[in-house]
């Protein structure tokens, strides 16, 4: 069984190698090779899962040391894997959703010339992500962390001929670097504090280190999590990342990679539990982001960007839960898994819509599509119900638990967090209903307008103007994954909650405790229902009852700010870009004046000296002899002088 763990990483890595190095010979079969690889790793993951299930609850941890990676003096790092309940949960999510999305991509990317390369990158992502969650030490985790960053970069910019995609890829990479620096500092701090990177020794003895140290490590880990999971203040890249092909958005930027930050925080539970300041920061980041993302999601007309805002917001929930400590770790991961199902399903649905609509992404040019795409409508609809927390569906169980845990935190803090989570639930219901209504209900706004007097606002729309879309259902290879994911969205939450199965499964790793909520569980559920209904109703009245203009109205100040992602890019631009510009210009001036001056001056001096000394070499043997004679005299004199001194 231990050997299988290594194989789990190796199989997709080999797949990526074969696909990326195989050349054009593999063009015809590449996508099926990639899909088979993903399916194979899912099978391996399932076997491992079954193996763990067969063991006692407190004996479900397998450690494998593969090889000694960096043995240099006192610095010692092994490449090893750790399989426990937490990592196997991730393994199943990654390979399961991953396999479905591979399958979906076979259809979605059917007409792309570089499909083989696309599948190579997807396999590379799987390998890196599995390495991230299976590593048994922070250094190897860091390798996987960087690997998924690379895969994300390659896939966001997959359509590199589009300048917007290339820019988005660069942006994602750069913003992620900020977080990566945090992780690298955290890893270094760990080494100086504990003398090792391994999870075991670091986490078991976390309380022995000083609180200051732990706070520093925790804050750096949080910075890393913010970068990868698109949390405030490093959230700006996720919206642009939607430039990538939609399966990528579904797999990497909704279901798996962006949740790596939650994994990191949950895995490092021992550190955060011993560093209250860092934990408070985690909660704050989560709460702010869940509102931030939700507000952004309300204003976006691009269906994928609206969903991206939603992703940000839902991960905010997870981070919030992870920041609650043992109260919330289990629910963070549970929401992560259910979210993986329904958000991936929603993205695939969005992709299916775009597929039928000539790659149109503006929801104001959709409408009434339920008749044309029944399967997409139903699966998307189930995902929608799951995310807004409709009773009985996945989101209901996981999100409700997080809101309860937030109240259970106790005191003013509990009220604030619980209130924020409740408000977030209302906004979620609002923006998701808006997406649903704009896309599948109402007038068919994609038919050419009788009076095209108003210029189009969206460049994407302009590109397709004139060619009326003919909405149609997607092929089976795309709808089957959507159906499977929809089934997961409906059932997962309920299955997890039967007899608290998920809590019992995960609590040996993360720890779990029930809090004393000032409000009863029933009250919380009822309140959640009420705000959900309010959100849905508001959206229905605003978009379902009234005609939707194809050109977006000017909107309120908040709407306009939200359309611009709540000014995140503007702030970044003013603070970082302009500030950086000034700094760099100043440095360049110093470089030109001082450094270049010194360098050129030295060069001129050496050149001048060289030209002068060269004249001594005049070609006459007599001069050379004189030089030798003088040299000998000096040598003798110096030797005698040394003795005299």
């Amino acid at each position: 069984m231990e050997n299988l763990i290594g194989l789990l990483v190796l199989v997709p890595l080999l797949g990526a190698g074969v696909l990326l190095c195989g050349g054009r010979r593999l063009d015809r079969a590449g996508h099926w090779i990639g899909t088979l690889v993903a399916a194979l790793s899912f099978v391996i993951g399932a076997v491992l899962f079954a193996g763990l299930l067969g063991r006692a609850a407190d004996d479900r941890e397998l450690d494998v040391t593969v090889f000694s990676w960096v043995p240099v003096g006192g610095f010692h790092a092994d490449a090893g894997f750790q399989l426990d309940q937490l990592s196997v949960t991730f393994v199943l999510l990654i390979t399961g959703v991953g396999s479905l999305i591979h399958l979906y991509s076979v259809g979605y990317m059917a007409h792309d010339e570089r499909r083989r390369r696309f599948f190579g990158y997807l396999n590379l992502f799987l390998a890196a992500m599995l390495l991230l969650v299976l590593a048994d030490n922070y250094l190897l985790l860091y390798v996987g962390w960087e690997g998924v960053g690379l895969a994300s970069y390659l896939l966001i910019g997959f359509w590199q001929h589009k300048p917007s995609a290339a820019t988005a890829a660069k942006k994602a990479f750069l913003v992620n670097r900020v977080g990566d620096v945090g992780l690298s500092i955290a890893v270094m701090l760990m080494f100086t504090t504990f003398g090792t990177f391994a999870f075991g020794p670091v986490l078991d003895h976390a309380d022995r280190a000083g609180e200051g140290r732990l706070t520093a490590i925790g804050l750096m880990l949080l910075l890393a999590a913010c970068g990868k999971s698109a949390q405030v203040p490093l959230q700006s890249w996720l919206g642009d990342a939607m430039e990538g092909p939609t399966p990528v958005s579904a797999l990497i930027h909704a279901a798996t990679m962006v949740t790596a930050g939650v994994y990191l925080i949950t895995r490092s539970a021992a550190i955060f539990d011993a560093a209250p300041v860092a934990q408070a920061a985690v909660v704050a980041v989560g709460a702010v982001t869940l509102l931030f993302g939700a507000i952004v999601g309300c204003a976006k007309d691009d269906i994928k960007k609206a969903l991206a805002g939603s992703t940000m917001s839902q991960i905010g929930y997870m981070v919030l839960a992870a920041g609650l400590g043992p109260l919330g770790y289990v629910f963070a991961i549970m929401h992560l898994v259910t979210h993986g199902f329904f958000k991936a399903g929603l993205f695939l649905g969005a992709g299916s819509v775009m597929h039928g609509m000539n790659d149109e992404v503006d929801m104001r040019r959709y409408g009434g599509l339920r008749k044309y795409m029944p399967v997409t409508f139903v699966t998307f609809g189930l995902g929608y119900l799951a995310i807004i927390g409709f009773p009985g569906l996945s989101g209901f169980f996981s999100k409700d638990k997080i809101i309860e845990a937030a109240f259970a935190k106790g005191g003013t803090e509990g009220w604030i967090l619980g209130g924020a989570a409740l408000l977030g639930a209302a906004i979620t219901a609002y923006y998701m209903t808006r997406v649903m209504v704009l896309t599948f209900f109402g007038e068919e706004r994609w038919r050419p307008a009788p009076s095209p007097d108003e210029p189009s606002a969206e460049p994407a729309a302009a590109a397709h103007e004139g060619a009326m879309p003919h909405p149609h259902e997607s092929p089976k290879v795309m709808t089957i994954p959507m159906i499977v994911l929809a089934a997961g969205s409906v059932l997962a939450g309920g299955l997890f909650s039967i007899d608290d199965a998920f809590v019992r499964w995960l609590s040996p790793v993360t720890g779990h405790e029930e809090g004393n909520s000032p409000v009863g569980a029933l009250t919380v559920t009822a309140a959640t229902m009420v705000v959900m209904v309010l959100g849905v109703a508001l959206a229905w009245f605003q978009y379902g009852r009234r005609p939707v203009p194809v050109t977006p109205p000017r909107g309120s100040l908040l709407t306009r700010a939200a359309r611009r992602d709540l000014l995140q890019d503007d702030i970044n631009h003013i603070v970082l870009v302009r500030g950086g510009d000034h700094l760099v210009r100043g440095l360049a001036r110093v470089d030109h004046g001082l450094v270049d001056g010194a360098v050129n001056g030295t060069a001129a001096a050496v050149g001048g000296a060289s030209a002068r000394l060269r004249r001594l070499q005049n070609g006459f043997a007599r001069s050379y002899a004189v030089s030798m004679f003088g040299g000998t005299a000096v040598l003798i004199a110096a030797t005698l002088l040394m003795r005299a001194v």
Partner: protein
Amino acid sequence: MSPAAPGAVVHSLWTTAAAEAPVKIPGPVIEYAELAPVLIVLGTALVGVLVEAFLPRRLRHPAQALLAAVGLAAAFAAVVALAAGGYANGKAHPAAMGAVAVDGPALFLQGTILLTGLVAVLTFAERRLDPAAHGRPVDSFAAQAAAVPGGEAEQKAVRAGLTTTEVFPVLLFAVGGMLVFPAANDLLTLFVALEVFSLPLYVLCALARRQRLLSQEAAVKYFLLGAFSSAILLFGVALLYGYAGTVTYSGIADVVGGTPRTVTPALAATMGNDALLLIGGAMVLMGLLFKVGAVPFHMWTPDVYQGAPTPVTGFMAAATKVAAFGALLRLLYVVLPGLRWDWRPVMWGVAIVTMLIGAVVAVTQTDVKRLLAYSSIAHAGFILAGVVATSPAGVSSVLFYLGAYSFVTLGAFAVVTLVRDAGGEATQLSKWAGLGRRSPLVAAVFAVFLLAFAGIPLTSGFAGKFAVFKAAAQGGAAPLVIVGVLASAIAAFFYIRVIVLMFFNEPRPEGPTVAVPSPLTSTAIAVGLVVTVVLGVAPQYFLDLAGHAGVFVR
């Protein structure tokens, strides 16, 4: 010795030879097996002279080349056998009545010199670079050495297709002298070895087929200045004898250390006179510094390197340096260790001046051979930094550096022989512009050698320079290391300038072409390249080898 008085012995030999057992005059003890490398090389040279005299002209060239190669290879095998037999460490001792040392450094340097010579034979034997003259293949050497350039005799010789195949025995004589030089364990052997390898080099320098006048001028200058330095060295030997009453290294070292063995009555007045020691020591030192090309005794280097046939230049630049630094190390570490506080500051000064002058003057050179000459001066300075470390690490780092440097040098000069235009080798740097566009492979190989000279990591030059500077810094010569690094920075400028010239400049329309060499030169270049890269990527084994070899016998 028999207890009988000498007179009685003579008497008895004549009168009672039958009655008494004859008393033998003890003959010198010569350990032939331990001197095998030298004897093989010199013996092969003698055979080469016979070949020159008796073999038909047609067969001479291949026969001589093969003979020289076999002789050098056999001598190298003998060195390896001696080293494997423990003569590098446990059994190391002064052989041949104390005249020649057989120890680790000597064997290491002899091995290096023999390999250098072997590669040099390959470049000497190259006959495909120049177009055939009058239907006969030609090499780098003049048709007839004695003929006046441009004169009738020379034209006749060229037409007759004469070649100077005697270069091979001459080369072997030079190698023989070089083998003895770093092993010489008394001052007279040192001097004899010096002359044995210098005189053949003077001759070789004069033999260039192209630019005969430049070549002859170089030879004459080298000879005049070499004779001058030999004279000073010999004077120094005399003064040291006056000081110590002996010419053996260990004997002088004993006197310096205050424990003289015997006192010769005739020298009682001067024995132990420190002025003699210091002046004599400085003069002997000067003779060796001349051979390594240290400032201010370096001025022959550019002229001779430029004028000599390029294969000879490559051999000279590599092997002479190895032999001379070997002798210098032995002199300083065996004879004068008691005088460390006197010669170290002086050598500091020499090293600093050598590094700086070599690097600075190279900056404005316009001829690639002169550029490499100044580069060799700068490298002599770097090696001197290791010499003044006065520690075992210093010795081993110098040994390593010499091995690494000699192969880079051989390779670089071998590449120079390839770049040609109508007038033979195109050594003008301006003609090398854009070479990388026309002949990327050759230019890339040369670039590797230049990077090795500059000491860029992953080349042998880096490993060597690092070892030398490390030893110097540990030996308390940190300022020397700082100057060395600065000089390296200056040196990097002109090496990289050549690379820029080759790869980033437009080729000139009438620029030189790269001749396609025979496998001989290709092998020489390939060996240089492989050694350069291997010693750069995985230097540890060879550093260890040099480290094990780093102890001198007394």
